[in-house]
C-alpha cells in the first residue's frame, strides 16, 4: 500500500484562492487550479482553514509557503489565513488590473495573472512559478 496514494511527500507551496462568487473570484480559482495542475504548488481548501478543521490547519502548517489569490480588495483568502495564524504571500487581482464585475474569465486573463504572480519578488514563489506553466 505504501507508495500508492501516499501523502507523505513534502507539502511544498500551498495555494489558496478566494474562489468567490463574482467573476474575479472565479478567475482566482482558475488560476490556483492551473498552478496546481502544473505542479508548481498544491491547491488547498480555504474553507477548511476558515472552519478551523484541525486536520486542515495542521496540514497547512506543513506547507513551506502559503500563497493566497484574492479576486477583490476584500481579501477574504488572505484574511482567512491570517485569522488562522498564518502569514501568506498575498496576491490580489485588483492590483493586477482586474475589477469585480468586469473581469473576463478566459485563457488570456489566466495567463495574465500567472505572469503577474511570477513577477513577484518573493524568492521562493519566483523560483517555483517563474518557469511558467508546463502547458497542461
Amino acid at each position: 500500500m505504501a507508495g500508492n496514494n501516499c501523502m507523505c511527500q513534502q507539502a511544498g507551496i500551498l495555494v489558496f484562492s478566494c474562489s468567490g462568487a463574482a467573476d474575479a473570484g472565479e478567475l482566482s480559482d482558475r488560476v490556483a487550479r492551473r498552478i496546481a495542475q502544473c505542479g508548481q504548488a498544491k491547491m488547498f481548501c480555504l474553507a477548511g482553514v476558515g472552519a478551523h478543521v484541525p486536520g486542515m490547519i495542521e496540514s497547512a502548517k506543513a506547507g513551506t509557503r502559503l500563497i493566497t489569490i484574492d479576486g477583490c480588495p476584500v481579501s477574504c483568502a488572505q484574511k482567512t489565513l491570517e485569522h488562522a495564524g498564518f502569514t501568506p504571500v498575498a496576491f490580489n487581482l485588483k492590483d493586477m488590473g482586474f475589477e469585480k464585475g468586469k473581469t473576463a474569465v478566459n485563457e488570456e486573463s489566466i495567463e495574465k495573472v500567472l505572469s503577474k504572480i511570477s513577477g513577484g519578488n518573493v524568492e521562493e514563489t519566483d523560483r517555483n512559478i517563474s518557469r511558467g506553466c508546463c502547458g497542461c
Partner: protein
Amino acid sequence: MKIEILGVGCPKCKQLTANAEAAVNELNVQAEISKVTDINKITDYGVMMTPALAVDGTVVSAGKVLSKDEIKKLISK
C-alpha cells in the same frame, strides 16, 4: 486516551508509530494506539499531509514525523 496514526503505511508513518509507542511507554499512560491507513478515512479528518497524529479524535499534527519528546508534550496536555 486514543492515539491514531494516519498514513498509508510508508516508513514515515511507521516511524511516527514507533515514536508514539515510545512516548506512551515513557509516560506510562493508558493509551490505545491504532493506525488509520484508509485514505478516505484520513481525508475525512481533513488531513491532506501525512503522516498525521490524532489524539482522542482531534488531529494535532500533520505532514511531519514528530519525535518521541514532541509527542510526550502533546499527550501530556
